[in-house]
């Protein structure tokens, strides 16, 4: 008797709970449908919007300053910054919040995240806001955003996000070591290989490796394949293209340097900035967003500078970093307020300030050409390296399932660099794995 009644009670309980849950979610759905009617315009009532970001240290200070400026200039809008930790944490929290219907108004997002958000109807189309006569962008203002960033934020002719903190990979080099070996910063693949060979050796009982790559060098493969003159992936057709003579050439180039010991990966150091600033590595290719970290660690240790990435057959440089999107779940007032904030955040003055403080690139041509910025990169030339690559800029694959595809490729590249597979075998397996991932989401 006792046993049965307790089982019955617990079953009832579970049912009750399940019932509560489903009824509330249908209500929310109805609410959502009403909200999707697009209205743009001025913000009248006081609105508070939350901005989830993953900026810490210097970056957070600069972002807070811009946001405070915005809040003091706009009585009716209050932007609340919420630091969510690293990018991984941010992505996980966004997903959990989307499920729980507690999304913020705006957030940082990589392009492939936004692809997922669009698939799941989570983000608002920004095109109506851009086209709004009163509060949108004029043709000129829109074209002022750097081409490659604008394209990266457009999906099927619609803008779902705006560029914010954009970076690219550059070649960091140790001035002292290069001068000693009488080596100029390399500008081509051949020069890079020769320089790495010349710079490798031991000095004062310390082993120095000529060239360094970050751990996720497999994620950089799109750029290397393009530099070799090949194609990486056809996103429209859903076809993997990197298992080609150019792909083999690209991976062989990196692999041969790793195998003969003239190059190394960051390995257990996590990021190349560590071994580079210790003087263990003479040059490395890494994100321009790492400039401030390198500068800090290098102080008193090494003299360093940076140069554009050496060219292969062609110049090709991936531009990374996140954009900002507005979530569909916000109210119309919040969305309008968020749009005001985004416009402010990436206006010429603020994007310049942001770039100067952080090492990211200004996202507007007017900022790149401003006297303020030109003077700044004259003083601190490393900050001007990234923009020299804009003409050869592209952005990484961002189709649905990009995360799985990139991981599958990176794993195979790792196996090649560890000497466990040949370049040909690794690329063939990477192609197979990536194609399987692509076909799965089709």
């Amino acid at each position, binding site marked *: *008797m006792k046993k049965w009644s307790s089982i019955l*009670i617990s079953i009832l309980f579970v049912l009750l709970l399940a019932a509560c849950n489903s009824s509330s979610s249908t209500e929310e759905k109805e609410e959502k449908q009403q909200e999707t009617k697009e209205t743009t315009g001025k913000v009248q009532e006081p609105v508070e919007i939350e901005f989830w970001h993953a900026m810490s240290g210097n970056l957070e200070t600069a972002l807070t300053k811009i946001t405070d400026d915005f809040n003091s200039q706009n009585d009716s809008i209050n932007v609340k910054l919420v630091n969510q930790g690293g990018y991984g944490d941010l992505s996980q929290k966004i997903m959990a919040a989307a499920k729980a219907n507690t999304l913020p108004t705006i957030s940082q997002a990589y392009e492939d995240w936004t692809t997922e958000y669009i698939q799941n109807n989570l983000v608002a189309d920004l095109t109506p806001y851009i086209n709004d006569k009163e509060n949108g962008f004029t043709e000129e203002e829109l074209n002022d955003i750097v081409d490659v960033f604008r394209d990266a934020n457009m999906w099927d002719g619609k803008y779902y996000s705006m560029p914010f903190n954009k970076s690219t990979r550059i070649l960091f080099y140790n001035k002292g070591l290069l001068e000693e070996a009488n080596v100029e910063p390399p500008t081509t693949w051949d020069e890079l290989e020769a320089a790495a060979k010349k710079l490798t050796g031991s000095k004062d009982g310390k082993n120095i490796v000529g060239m360094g790559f970050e751990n996720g060098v497999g994620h950089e493969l799109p750029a290397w394949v393009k530099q070799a003159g090949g194609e990486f992936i056809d996103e429209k057709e859903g076809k993997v293209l990197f298992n080609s003579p150019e792909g083999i050439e690209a991976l062989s180039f990196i692999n041969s340097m790793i195998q003969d010991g003239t190059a190394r990966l960051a390995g257990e150091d996590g990021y190349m900035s560590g071994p580079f600033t210790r003087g263990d590595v003479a040059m490395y290719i890494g994100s321009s967003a790492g400039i401030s970290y390198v500068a800090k660690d290098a102080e008193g240790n090494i003299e360093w500078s940076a140069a554009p990435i050496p060219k292969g057959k062609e110049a090709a440089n991936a531009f990374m970093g996140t954009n900002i999107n507005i979530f569909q779940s916000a109210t119309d007032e919040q969305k309008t307020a968020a749009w005001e904030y985004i416009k402010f955040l990436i206006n010429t003055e603020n994007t310049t300030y942001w770039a100067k403080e952080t090492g990211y690139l200004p996202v507007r041509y007017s900022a790149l050409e401003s006297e303020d910025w030109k003077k700044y990169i004259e003083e601190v030339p490393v900050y001007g390296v990234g923009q020299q690559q804009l003409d050869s800029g592209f952005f990484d694959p961002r189709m649905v399932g990009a995360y799985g595809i990139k991981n599958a490729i990176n794993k195979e590249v790792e196996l090649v660099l*560890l000497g466990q597979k040949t370049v040909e075998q690794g690329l063939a397996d990477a192609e197979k794995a990536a194609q399987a991932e692509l076909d799965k989401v089709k």
Partner: protein
Amino acid sequence: MGRPTLKSTFTAFLYLLPALLIITVFTIYPIIKSLLISFYNDYDFFQDIVYERGIDSYIYLWNDPNFHLALKNTFIFVIGVVPCSIILSLLIAILLNTNIKLRALFRTVYFIPFVTSVVAVSIVWRWIFHTEYGVLNYFLGLFGVDPIAWLTDPKWAMPSLIILSIWKGLGYNIIIFLAGLQNINDQYYLAAKIDGASAIKRFFFITVPLLSPTTFFVSVVSIIGSFKVFDEIYALFGGQPGPASSALTVVYYIFEKFYGEWNFGVASAAAYCLFIIIFILTLIQLYIGKRKVTY
């Protein structure tokens, strides 16, 4: 106590309510929900709409080489960690149970790894394991061993992880064993001594059998815990499942499918596979336990 009446059951239920509520919301509901999700073929996760149900996720797992790798790695990990950990902690517990100086201090020292945050511990171990600057390779170097790339060589990644996990789990097992040892009546040892039994004989014929309920408990808990390993990997390899996925375990696989690829169905199905494996192993242990644990 009389026979349970409706009223007394109700009262009991009221007392149980807070705990039941928490368990239902945070354990039972997710368990049922993820079972349901594992059978979604085509669905909108965020709106809770299911277009098609089926066993696609399980078929996917059946064919996914990464999942097979994760299973293999997990078994290697469990086999590497559990026996070593039990034997080592039993030995240390016996030493700590004898009258040595600074006994209380040692007990605390061995327990510290267990209560320290995995992330903090892993940072220290990343330094210990460092190829060029690590203390482990330094010591091995004294014996003429060439530096080992503990964390970057796929061959050594799993052993490194196992070493870290054994070290980290020792403290908990030692405490449980100590409690078990103290439950063994000294009379047995005295009687055995009078009969002239050697220390080794006393260990195998008194300690081991009388400690079997504790050993049983420790082995069940360790096996379940080891199957669920995740934080150690995440922290030790800096957010990667080891070099070339050499330390990819089932829970890490679930994490990647769920948070990385938003592949909720496959993640839930993998979680259920893990659940069934642990469940079967625990049943086997219970069966063996019934026959061997006699006290």
